[in-house]
């Protein structure tokens, strides 16, 4: 049915503010309605007279100033009544000072608060229900790796990587570890339908674990500072999630299609608090969430079972904890479970895959040089982990966190590219994750003395010159530029997000405004601060670019050349694991120490 054209009078009941009405006027005219916009600062009586003289069907009044708003608007409605037009004319009120409840209380037909769209006002004028543009606003889970074919533009780097990967696969072919065996047992436990078989598999599993984990399987003893969650707590949580999901209408952070997807990292220690943080972040626009496990988890052989809470940072990995978190997520939320360090890498990836994680994280170089795990052990474990990632169709990022130890970017990138090429060979889909931060390397060498733009840009330009692969800046962006001041911290995050977007990366991980605060857990408001800041920054820059200086290109070439030199030395060395011990991918002098956890535990098949 065609919409009946209306005569709409727009009246700013303010001394100066009428921008909102001008926007609505344009929208109404585009929809074919006749409009008349009164100048600001008309008296109530003048507006009423204009309504009568122009025979308006609908009146939209705006009020921005909050002072005395109820009295002023109440008087306007009283005058409309007295003039006999109240029942003949539809009157809506909008503006910064307006809330729908106030409008209804005062007798207006509708009230439009801050954030009202032109479409809402149009629906009111046309007397129909406002239905938001669901398709435009709807969040869709994005595949970060889509559109990348992993073609190497730098063929000499590719050749070196192939030779190193051949060596890794040959090295691990006759080796296994307790972690690989536990992952195989866990798979059987999860797939078994028979309780007594499960129990006997558990006993077998416990023999491959540390004492603390074995004590759990043998006598039900929990590790210190952990406890099982009660049935009542779990019921409350389920109710909470159901209730929250029923009122979720997540914001979208991206302003243009070019803006990257935004991840936050959680790991409060408690799966309930994690879920509370995740739901809040989803509501405020986070596209993805990254699971952080406790640091002791990386040094412990074996996983516990059940719903377990933890009093310190990092949320304990169990099948049940991860499943509970996964089940609470919105359908559009990307979920990553990290497996880039530690003694449970294959099982972590297996659990993530079984439960339906979208992404995981694996890096032998970082995990063994900055993450504390023995290089040989992690190499054997990581190859199995990558195979699981490929089996469960989970792309994995290869993060260069060893940069935070002091390893220069070119060495860390060499390690990242080796693991990425290994991933490709094993059928995986790696994502490059360069740090996007104020790293020790630049603190010492001075590349960020003038700005934080050039060196970060150089890293991305360098990687783009080498290979056509997805890039996810981590983790978190702006690390070591944030202070405890939430405004400064949020601003730094937002600026780094904008730079990453300008460089065309696919994803970013952002911190909360509590990033630099170490005196207690991260709070939910601090998470929302940086999400809001990032959203505003994306809005501010739109499709415009941040232009680095000429140093970015120079440094990009230097990093690329440095990577090639490192790869030549690793290839010449002939053994990747040995190269890690020798410091070819990051030396002790640079702050990289080969990890000791799991040392001497690799088993010859």
């Amino acid at each position: 049915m065609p919409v009946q054209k209306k005569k709409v009078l727009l009246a700013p009941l303010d001394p100066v503010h009428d921008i909102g009405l001008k926007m609505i006027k344009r929208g109404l005219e585009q929809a074919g309605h006749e409009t008349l916009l009164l100048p600001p600062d008309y008296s109530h009586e003048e507006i009423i007279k204009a309504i009568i003289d122009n025979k308006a069907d609908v009146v939209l009044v705006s009020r921005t100033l909050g002072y005395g708003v109820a009295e002023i608007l109440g008087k306007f409605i009283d005058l409309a009544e007295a003039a006999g037009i109240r029942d003949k004319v539809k009157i809506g009120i909008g503006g910064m000072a307006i809330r729908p409840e106030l409008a209804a209380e005062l007798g207006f037909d509708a009230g439009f608060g801050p954030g009202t769209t032109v479409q809402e006002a149009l629906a009111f004028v046309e007397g129909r229900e406002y239905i938001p543009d669901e398709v435009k606003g709807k969040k869709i889970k994005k595949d970060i790796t889509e559109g990348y074919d992993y073609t190497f533009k730098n063929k000499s780097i590719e050749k070196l990587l192939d030779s190193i990967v051949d060596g890794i696969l040959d090295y691990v072919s006759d080796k296994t570890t307790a972690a690989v065996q536990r992952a195989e047992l866990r798979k059987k436990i999860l797939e078994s339908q028979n309780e007594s078989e499960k129990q006997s598999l558990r006993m077998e599993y416990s023999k491959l674990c540390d004492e603390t984990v074995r004590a759990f399987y043998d006598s039900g003893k929990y590790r210190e500072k952990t406890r099982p969650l009660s049935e009542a707590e779990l019921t409350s949580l389920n109710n909470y999630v159901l209730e929250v999901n029923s009122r979720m209408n997540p914001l979208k952070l991206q302003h243009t299609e070019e803006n990257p997807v935004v991840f936050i990292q959680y790991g409060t220690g408690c799966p309930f608090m994690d879920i509370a943080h995740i739901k809040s972040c989803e509501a405020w626009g986070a596209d993805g969430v990254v699971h952080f496990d406790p640091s002791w988890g990386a040094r412990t052989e074996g996983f516990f079972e059940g719903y377990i809470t933890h009093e310190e940072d990092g949320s304990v990995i169990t099948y049940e904890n991860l499943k509970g978190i996964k089940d609470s997520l919105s359908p559009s939320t990307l979920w990553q479970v990290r497996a880039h360090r530690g003694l449970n890498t294959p099982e972590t990836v297996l659990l993530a895959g079984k439960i339906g994680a979208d992404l995981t994280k694996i890096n032998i170089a970082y995990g063994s040089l900055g993450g504390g795990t023995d290089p040989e052990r992690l190499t054997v474990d990581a190859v199995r982990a990558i195979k699981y990632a490929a089996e469960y169709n989970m792309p994995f990022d290869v993060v260069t966190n060893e940069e935070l130890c002091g390893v220069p970017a070119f060495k860390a990138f060499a390690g990242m590219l080796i693991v990425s090429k290994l991933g490709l060979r094993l059928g995986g889909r790696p994502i490059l994750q360069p740090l996007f931060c104020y790293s020790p390397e630049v603190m010492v060498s001075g590349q960020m003395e003038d700005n934080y733009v050039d060196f970060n840009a150089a890293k991305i330009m360098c990687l783009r010159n080498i290979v056509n692969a997805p890039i996810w800046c981590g983790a978190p962006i702006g690390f070591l530029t944030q202070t405890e001041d939430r405004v400064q911290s949020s601003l730094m995050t937002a600026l780094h997000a904008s730079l990453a977007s300008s460089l065309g990366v696919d994803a970013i991980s952002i911190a909360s405004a509590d990033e630099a605060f170490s005196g207690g857990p991260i709070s939910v408001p601090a998470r929302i601060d940086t999400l809001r800041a990032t959203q505003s920054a994306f809005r501010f820059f739109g499709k415009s670019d941040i232009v680095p200086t000429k140093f970015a290109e120079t440094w990009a070439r230097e990093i690329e050349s440095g990577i090639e030199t490192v790869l030549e030395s690793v290839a010449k060395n002939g053994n990747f694991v040995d190269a890690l011990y020798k410091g070819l991918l990051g030396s002790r002098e640079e702050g990289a120490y080969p990890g000791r956890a799991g040392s001497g535990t690799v088993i010859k098949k």
Partner: protein
Amino acid sequence: MSAVMEKVMDAVDLETFLVCKDEEEGKKLSLQLMEDLGFKDVSIVFIQHQGPGARVRLRGYVYKPGDRYGWLKKE
């Protein structure tokens, strides 16, 4: 704990500007302020003193991870 405080997801942040002579005094005043308001688990997240006083961000934790959260209770 009051019914309203039970609805706080994790912490209450209080941001203000305290008139004081230096950062040390600012810290003392900050802790006193949070104690006066009844917070038990208090942190000074941010403090910076310049000239007339200190810009502060103070935090009172209501719930920390692993606690039994009031907002999870059924109404």
